[in-house]
């Protein structure tokens, strides 16, 4: 499970360029699948038979894409201007290592030395439009040998396990969910199930809408990650959720009011099986659930999210046990669907 997740986090799949992630999943899913297809958007849909064929069509869903940047211009001096691909807090960009394009050309997000800033500049951040990537090129001509406008840019891909069972990586959002689905696919399933590995969640849940239309599920479980603000200085509900308190079963976020009955079901399954769980204490964020729920004639949707600190940054942090619990609870959910 952890190995799968680490491998997935190291792959590059910035929204609109999920190919590397899809290729990897496709290769591993192929031998287990009863049906497998990709669609024109790039979603990967896999069907696998289980012990029983339930009355309801079940679809699990996780997104393959990650937040990143896209090159918008190469300057005469050889620097790259960029825009965000997906929602990014620009405070995590300054001075970070990045990889540009499919050849993974290394570069860094530059910012003039602190000595050259005014007191006010040190306290503010330039808009993204004024930031730039330095790939060490002397001029535009040299830069053009290895990069071009439109190249997607991903964060540094080193994975670190640290502390008391924590993991640091880029793209835990949502390779954690992809890993859960891939591991389920490679196991014997309690019931027939569709697995939708979607594209472009980070730019508006665009892939999931198409995938749901194609699979036409009755019930869908979204396997996701969610922001945790469990740091000193943030108190009460604003912490949203806390690492170490269990996998998150949300009742509502900014895109979806989750199916009440399924919310209750997941909570009950967790408690009956001794799996710690929590819910979000703030209505924030969103998932592919928003697109799946309102697809076609409507879908009953629920979600399981791994709490992640520094989400949408190169150094997101998750608790390994909570990634494993997401898998356990998803399996229990399928067992319930089989009844």
């Amino acid at each position, binding site marked *: 499970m952890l190995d799968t997740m680490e491998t997935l986090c190291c792959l590059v799949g910035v929204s609109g360029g999920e190919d590397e992630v899809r290729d990897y999943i496709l290769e591993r899913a192929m031998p287990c699948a009863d049906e497998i297809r990709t669609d024109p958007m790039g979603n990967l849909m896999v069907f696998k038979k289980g012990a029983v064929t339930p009355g309801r069509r079940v679809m699990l869903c996780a997104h393959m894409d990650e937040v990143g940047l896209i090159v918008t211009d190469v300057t005469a001096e050889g620097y790259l201007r960029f825009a965000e691909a997906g929602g990014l807090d620009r*405070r995590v960009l300054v001075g970070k290592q990045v990889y540009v394009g499919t050849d993974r050309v290394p570069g860094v997000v530059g*910012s003039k*030395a602190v000595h050259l800033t005014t007191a006010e500049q040190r306290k*503010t951040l330039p808009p993204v439009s004024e930031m730039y990537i330095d790939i*060490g090129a002397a001029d535009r001509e040299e830069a053009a040998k290895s990069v071009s406008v439109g190249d997607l840019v991903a964060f540094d891909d080193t994975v670190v396990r640290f*502390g008391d069972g924590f993991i640091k990586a880029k793209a835990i959002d949502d390779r954690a969910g992809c890993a859960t689905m891939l591991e389920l696919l490679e196991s014997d399933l309690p019931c027939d199930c569709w697995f939708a590995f979607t594209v472009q969640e980070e730019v508006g849940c665009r892939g999931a809408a198409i995938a749901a239309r194609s699979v036409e599920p009755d019930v869908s479980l979204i396997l996701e990650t969610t922001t945790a603000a469990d*740091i000193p200085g943030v108190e009460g509900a604003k912490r949203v959720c806390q690492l170490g308190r269990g996998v998150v079963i949300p009742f509502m976020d900014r895109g979806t009011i989750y199916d009440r009955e399924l919310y209750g079901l997941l909570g009950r399954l967790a408690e009956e099986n001794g799996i710690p769980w929590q819910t979000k204490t703030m209505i924030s964020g969103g998932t592919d659930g928003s697109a799946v729920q309102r697809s076609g004639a409507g879908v009953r949707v629920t979600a399981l999210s791994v709490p992640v600190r520094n989400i949408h940054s190169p150094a997101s942090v998750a608790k390994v046990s909570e990634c494993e619990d997401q898998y356990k609870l998803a399996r229990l959910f399928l067992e319930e669907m089989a009844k």
Partner: protein
Amino acid sequence: MELAELTKRLCGLSGPSGFEEPVRAWIAEYLAPVADEVRTDPMGNMIALKRCGKPGAKLALLDAHMDEIGFIVTGAEKGYLSFGMLGGVDQRMLPAREVRVLTEPPLYGVIATMPPHVLTEEEKGRSIEPDKLFIDVGLSQEEAVRTVPPGTPVVYAGSCEMLGEGMLCGKALDDRACAAVIIKAFEKLSQEELDVDICCLVSTQEEVGHRGAKTAAWGLRPDVALVVDVTHGKTPDAPNVPCSCGKGPAICMGPNINSALSKELFALARDGKIPHQPKAEPGGNSGTNAEAIQISREGVVTGLIGLPLKYMHSPVEMVSLADMEAIVELLTAYVEGLEV
């Protein structure tokens, strides 16, 4: 060891101001085979000497500093570490930053960032004040208190790597890149017949006020000193900086520098066809060890060579390897020309 490899090894070591011992020890061991004497002093400076054996020989000093900017743990709160700064840290660099907490063995940590939803409208778009940031080492409060006492130093994680065509990029290039340069120059000069004694001084605590160089210069009594430190390189958001990476060493001129010495460096660079760029240092304090050394005892003839560097005091500092090689060439040419 080749210059690039040497620089990578040096940058990978952890040595924030006041806690440079691993760097000092590594360099001392590296230089021991070529030096006549390697020693340290109460400030922890790394001093390597090579004597020419001629009576009354003068002492030429090469200086670069070994310390890097960093942090120091001040306490633990809910398992997270609070910290203060060692040297001029740029607070804009901190959110979601990976660090190495220098316990024994070191711990990996991430400076946790506040997600946008907990910020007020006014706070968005502003950098976070360091007293609101904490290092996440993935431990409970009890464990954090037990394993990471206050006073534990912290540095940025990582080292440096080659980037593009001949650039080096990473942490601590200020001033380990220049330490690598003077070490290479010392290695080269130690194999030559010289008319002067030479000293390779890799000094401590530059980032907190040129402290190591102050005592080392006093103890060594050099006749002439060449300080090698980084200088700002031009970037898109700092277009008015005079020097650029890749255009050669900056030969500095100003009150903090002996003018005859800088003239000599210009002449050597021109004659040797060594790329170089002029840099004016208007103040009495160039912000480098040249300040401490020049006014040591009864005064020292002091020169300053700048290695252009982009993004100073960030974890992604950047220099040109060709510029570094040019400084090795310039330093050796200068010392070779010194007479008894």
